[in-house]
């Protein structure tokens, strides 16, 4: 399974999302690769992805992708990530 973490520039927000999503996936024992991407490359990167993780502000600009879009408010709240990811994946 492939998950894309998207932010405007692809180095800050998306990288933090990737790091914490990987932690949560491990907890949930779900096998998946998580890639960080910026807004410019997100569409290309997401074509075979199941889930796109991003921030509430960017959801609108990512609409129309095949993948399910999950928006995360608090990046260091692993519980929020766990709840949202398990709802989408389990």
């Amino acid at each position, binding site marked *: 399974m492939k998950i894309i973490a998207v*932010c405007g520039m692809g180095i800050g927000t998306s990288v*933090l999302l990737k790091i914490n999503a990987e932690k949560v996936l491990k907890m949930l024992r779900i096998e998946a690769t998580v890639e960080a991407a910026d807004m410019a490359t997100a569409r290309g990167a997401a074509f075979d992805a199941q889930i796109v993780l991003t921030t509430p502000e960017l959801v609108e600009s990512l609409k129309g992708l095949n993948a399910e879009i999950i928006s995360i408010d*608090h990046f260091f709240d692993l519980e929020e990530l766990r709840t949202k990811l398990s709802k989408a994946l389990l």
Partner: protein
Amino acid sequence: MGLLADAFGEGSILIKESVGTRSAAIEIAGELLVQSGKAKHSYVASMLEAVERFGPYIVIAPGIALAHGKPSEDVIETGLSLLVLKQAIEFQHAQNDPVQLVFGLAAIDHESHMETMAKLAEVLSDQDRVSTLLTSSDSDQIRVLLG
């Protein structure tokens, strides 16, 4: 890989009473990267542009912003800066306002700062350490806290 504090160059941490605007806060975090030799002055403009273009999504958790541009020739080496505000400021973020910790990030590429970011995530996930960061009045103490 060394300590998270190593990503913060000399003079890259500043504690300030208040700033006037969100842009001013981002500019200061950017100038701290410039002063500590991590980025050229032109990088600061790209940090501001990111927020103008994509909105205040850089407010990644309650009270915490991570201001950054993207990897380019404006970046000299990967590094972080930190502006601690005694008086919180609005970033117009729907959930996570107001902001008191403004981190600046410069990265030379999309990969090489992964470990630094993992360590930063660890510190910022720790509510006790975040509280101490907020009440600290000494940048050397902050450096120690960052580990």
